C-alpha cells in the first residue's frame, strides 16, 4: 500500500471564538471568577472540536466541574504551603536568626515550588490527554510524576551548570518523555529524535543572534518543532511538520500587530490564525489500520490541572 497522508485542519473562525470568549469574560465577571473553570473548558472544547485529522474531529471530554474541583484542591495545597512558609519565616525573623537559616528557608521555598510545578506539568498532561479523543478512542498519558520530577531536576541543574548548553539535550529528553508516555487507545507513540542536531542548531542560533538581531531564534523554534514532530511516530506512521522560520516569524509579527492595532479585540482571530498555522503545517504520513487500535480503560484527576493554573505554568498541548 502507498503511504497516505492524513492532514490536520483547523475549522474554527475568529467570529465564533470571539463570541465564546466575550460571553466567558462576562460570566467570569458576574460570578466573581468562579466561572473561569467552565470558561476554560468551553474554549478547549471549541478548539478540539474544530481540529480535524483525516476527516474526523477531536473531542474534549473534560468538564468545568472537574476543573473547578482541581482549582479548589490546588488552592488548598497553596494555602497550606503559604501557611507553613509564613510560619517558618516568622520563626526565623523572631529569633533574628542566622543568615544560614534564612537562606535555607528561601531555598526550601523555591525547591518546593519547583517540585510542584514539575508535578503540575505532568498531571496536567495526564488530565488533558485522558480527556481527548479521536474517532471515539481516548488518548492517555502514563508519565510518572517521580520520573518527570527527577528529569526536571537533573535537566535544570545541568542546564545551569553548563550555562545553557545542556538546554537542547534537556528539551529533547523532555519531548521524549512526553511522547513515549502518550498513547492513543492501546497504541503508544514513539520518539527517535537525537539531541545532536538540536544542539548544532542551538549553537548556530547563538552565533547568529547578534548578526540577525535575535530574529534567528524563530528559525530555531521552527527547527525544534520539525525535529520534535518528524521524529514522532505511531504504528509505522510518522508525523511531518513543514514549519519554516520565516513563516513562523511572519505569523507572530502579524498576530502581534493585529492584537496591538485593535487594542486586543482581535485576540480570538490571532488565536485562530495560530491554530490554523500549526494544523496546516502538520500531517501524519503512513498507513494505519485504525480498526486494530483498541480503547483502553483508565482515568485521571483534574488536580494537576488546577495546580498548573494556580502556579501559572503554561502547559502546551504539544501541537
Amino acid at each position, binding site marked *: 500500500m502507498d503511504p497516505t497522508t492524513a492532514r490536520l485542519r483547523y*475549522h*474554527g*473562525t475568529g*467570529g*465564533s471564538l470571539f*463570541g*465564546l470568549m*466575550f*460571553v466567558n*469574560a*462576562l*460570566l*467570569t*465577571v*458576574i460570578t*466573581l*471568577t468562579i466561572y*473561569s473553570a467552565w470558561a476554560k473548558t468551553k474554549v478547549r*472544547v*471549541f478548539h478540539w*472540536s*474544530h481540529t480535524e485529522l483525516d*476527516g*474526523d*474531529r477531536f*473531542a474534549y*471530554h473534560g468538564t468545568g466541574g472537574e476543573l473547578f474541583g482541581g482549582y479548589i484542591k490546588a488552592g488548598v495545597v497553596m494555602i497550606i504551603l503559604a501557611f507553613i512558609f509564613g510560619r517558618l519565616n516568622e520563626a526565623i525573623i523572631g529569633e533574628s536568626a542566622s543568615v544560614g537559616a534564612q537562606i535555607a528557608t528561601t531555598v526550601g521555598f523555591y525547591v518546593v515550588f519547583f517540585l510542584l510545578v514539575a508535578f503540575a506539568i505532568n498531571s496536567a498532561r495526564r488530565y488533558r490527554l485522558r480527556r481527548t479523543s*479521536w*474517532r*471515539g*478512542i*481516548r488518548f492517555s498519558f502514563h508519565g510518572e510524576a517521580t520520573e518527570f520530577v527527577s528529569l526536571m531536576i537533573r535537566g535544570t541543574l545541568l542546564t545551569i551548570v553548563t550555562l545553557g548548553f545542556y538546554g537542547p539535550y534537556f528539551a529533547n529528553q523532555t519531548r521524549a518523555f512526553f511522547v513515549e508516555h502518550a498513547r*492513543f*487507545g492501546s497504541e503508544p507513540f514513539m520518539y527517535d529524535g537525537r539531541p545532536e542536531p538540536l544542539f548544532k542548531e542551538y549553537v548556530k542560533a547563538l552565533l547568529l543572534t547578534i548578526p540577525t538581531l535575535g530574529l534567528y531564534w524563530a528559525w530555531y523554534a521552527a527547527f525544534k518543532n520539525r525535529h520534535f514532530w518528524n521524529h514522532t511516530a505511531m504504528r509505522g506512521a510518522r508525523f511531518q511538520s513543514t514549519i519554516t522560520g520565516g513563516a513562523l516569524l511572519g505569523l507572530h509579527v502579524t498576530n502581534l500587530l493585529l492584537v496591538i492595532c485593535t487594542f486586543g479585540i482581535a485576540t480570538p482571530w490571532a488565536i485562530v490564525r495560530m491554530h490554523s498555522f500549526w494544523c496546516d503545517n502538520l500531517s501524519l504520513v503512513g498507513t494505519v489500520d*485504525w*480498526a*486494530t*487500535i*483498541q*480503547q483502553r*480503560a483508565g482515568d485521571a484527576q483534574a488536580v494537576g490541572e488546577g495546580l498548573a493554573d494556580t502556579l501559572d505554568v503554561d502547559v502546551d498541548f504539544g501541537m
Partner: protein
Amino acid sequence: MTPRRWEWSGFYYDGRTAARQSVTLTLEGNRLHIRRPDGTSMLWPLSLVRQTQGGYSTEQVRLEFGSDPAEALLVNDPTFVAEIRAASPVARRAVRRQWRPAHIVALSVVALMIVVALYVWGAPAGAVWAADRLPKSWEVSMGEGFVEHLKQYDRVCADADTVPELQTIVTRLTDAGPGEEYRFHVIVVRDSAINAFAAPGGYVFLFTGLINAAETPEELAGVLAHEIQHVTLRHSTRALLREVPLRFALFSVTGSGETAMTTVASLGALTFRRSDETEADREGMRLLETARVDQSGMISFMRTLEAEHGDGPRFVRYLSSHPRTADRIAELERLASESRHETQPLLERGAWRRLHGLCGD
C-alpha cells in the same frame, strides 16, 4: 399520524476501536435507527443520546450513547439538525439548535446589559446598604489605609493634633457636631492642588494648596464642615464600597497582581455622587451654624473656586466631582439667608498667618 421518515448519512464509532464506519440514519418514533453497510443495525433511544458537539455551524454534529466506552455518531449532513428537531419534542431536547452569530451577539448584549445594570444600580444600592451596616472599626481601618498609602509617598506633613491653630478650628466643628460617632483626624497633605477629601472613619485630608487658597479661617472651616459631613453621612464609605465591584471585575479580567485594596487606597478612587455633595453642603452649613462659625466663609470660598475655575487644570480636580459651582453657591446663599445665628471669630490674624505657612509652602 405517522411521523415522517427522514434519512441522513453519518459515521459511527463503536468506542472500542478507531475504525470509522459509514452508516445511514433514520428516525423511528423516538429512536434513532443506525444501519451499517453490512446490514446490521442499532436503535438509540433519543432520550439517552447526548450531543457533545455541533453547537457551531463549523462543527460536526456529534452524538454519544452509553459510557465507558461511549459510542459516537458524527453527522455531516447540514440539514440534520433542523430536520430531526422538527420531528418530535424528544428529538428537540436531544439535539440542540446551532448557534448563529446573531444568537451570540444577542446573548452577549443581554449579558453586557446585566453587568452594566448591576454596576449602575446594584452596586450603589448595595454600597448604601453595606455602608450603613459596616462596623465603625472597619471604617476606621479603611481610613487608616489611606493614611498609610500617603505616608508611603512621604506626602503627609502634619496632623491637626500637632497644629494648635488647625486643631482650634477642628474642635469648634466637632464639638458642635453630631456627637462622638467618629473621632476626627485632620491630616495635612503636601500638595499644591486646591483639594480636600474625606476618607471613611473620620480621616479628613487637607491639601496645603487649599489652606493657602483660603483667605479667612472661616473659609477653611467651611471646607472642613463639608468634609466632616461626608464622613458622618458615610458618603466616603459608600463611595469606597461602590468601587469594589468594578475593581474586582477589572481584577478578574486582567488577573493583574494589583490588589483591590491598593487601588482603592489611591487618591483618585473616591468620587461622590451629586446628591452626596448637595447633602454635605446643606449639613455642612448646619454644622457651621451650630458651631457659630460665619457661614459666609463657605460661600466666599466657593466663589474663589468659581473665579479660578478656568485658571488651570489643578482646580478642575476639586471641582470635577462636584455639582456645578454656581448652583451650589445659589443653594448655599439660600440656606444662609434662612439662618440667623450669632457668630464668633475662629482665629486671630497671627495664628491664621502661621497656618498659611504650614509645611513650608
